[in-house]
């Protein structure tokens, strides 16, 4: 057994232990803290699977922003006097749930162990597409060129989620601003972070977008980092969540999918196919689309965390 295998085994045990803790913990907060730790470990697992792009997305959105969403919602429930105690389910129910869980996990494990060798793969097709786009990062090429229609629809799903969250607002608050993310008093240390960490973070976000063409990174990861920076500024109360009726906000939300769709339609007219990019111009066009995707993601994620409008538009 090599050192690397021991390391992998240790990592696997740690991930499962902390995942078990997030399920077993009594309090929500303790459970979410465990979940964020678990997300960090999971992204190391993704690195071991040679998937740095996924590792970054998992760390950013899967654990970071999701964890923040859960603690923020938990704090709001508590603030509004939400009752969070309940009798645990009966032993028989837990046993049945456990049996079902073991069954499903065993079936999946069997699938994993019985995967055909060599596995079916689309890598050669992706390789062909890659040459035409002029990109170096195959994952970005798949997202924006080879399977671009999927990615565009997924952006539409994000917009729909925002619409869904906003439509839960009380009538009088419609088009108003969501509740603030932070506490009333700004703290000195937070202001320091706004001045020191946030500019650096924005730089990292732009860097990830730019290198995403050839190296791990890209629109999702860059957008998530920028979203996190905006949320840090909102937590320190230097700025507040914007009114959801604001025109710039709505334009920014739909900019990504709109530009994506428009380029795809233009490809139908000029390059001879829906979502076809003209030869030789593929890379600049892809970067152009991605720039708007970054903007939309950076705006969408904080608005999803901030929740529905809670203040009337006049206040």
């Amino acid at each position, binding site marked *: 057994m090599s050192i690397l295998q021991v390391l992998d085994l240790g990592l696997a045990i740690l991930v499962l232990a902390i995942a078990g803790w997030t399920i077993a913990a009594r309090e929500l907060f303790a459970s979410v803290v465990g979940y964020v730790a678990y997300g960090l470990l999971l992204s190391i697992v993704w690195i071991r699977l040679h998937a740095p792009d996924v590792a970054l997305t998992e760390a950013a959105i899967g654990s970071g922003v999701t964890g*923040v969403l859960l603690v923020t919602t938990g704090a*709001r429930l508590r603030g509004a006097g939400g009752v969070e105690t309940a009798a645990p389910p009966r032993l028989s129910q837990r046993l049945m749930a456990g049996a079902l869980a073991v069954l499903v996990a065993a079936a999946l494990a069997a699938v994993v162990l019985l995967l055909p060798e060599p596995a079916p793969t689309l890598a050669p097709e992706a390789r062909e597409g890659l040459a035409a786009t002029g990109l170096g990062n195959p994952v970005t090429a798949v997202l924006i060129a080879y399977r671009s229609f999927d990615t565009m629809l997924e952006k539409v799903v994000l917009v729909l989620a925002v619409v869904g969250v906003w439509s839960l607002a009380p009538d009088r608050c419609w088009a108003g601003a969501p509740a603030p993310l932070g506490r009333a008093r700004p703290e000195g240390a937070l202001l320091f972070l706004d001045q020191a960490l946030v500019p650096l973070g924005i730089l990292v976000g732009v860097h990830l977008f730019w290198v995403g063409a050839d*190296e791990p990174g890209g629109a999702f990861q860059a957008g998530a980092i920028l979203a996190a920076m905006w949320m840090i500024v909102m937590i320190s109360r230097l700025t507040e969540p914007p009114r959801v009726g604001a025109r710039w906000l709505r334009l920014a939300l739909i900019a990504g999918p709109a530009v994506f769709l428009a380029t795809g339609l233009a490809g139908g007219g000029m390059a001879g196919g829906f979502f076809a990019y003209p030869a030789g111009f593929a890379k600049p066009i892809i970067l152009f689309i991605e720039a708007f995707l970054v903007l939309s993601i950076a705006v969408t994620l904080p608005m999803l965390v901030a929740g529905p409008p809670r203040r009337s538009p006049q206040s």
Partner: protein
Amino acid sequence: MNDALLVAAGFILLTVGAGLVRVLRGPGDFDRMMAVQLLGAGGVASLLLIASATTVAGVEDVALGLALLAAFASIAFVNSAEADGAEPLEGEDG
């Protein structure tokens, strides 16, 4: 040399992973957060070591992102933990 880097990475992961016992035991929310912060720093360190030993391209950027997001999560946690019970978030009733 690579083996030495992997041993160091495994050692660090193991120790900060053991530190996660603080997440289990608490007692306070802040103790739990500290364990996660230590895991964040240790995770970044072992990621860099593993990357250096196994040559997966672009892992430095992942570590950069991890460092930023660990900071973001810690800030949001401090914010929510403080708001705990004592003072409801402002503007809840519109």
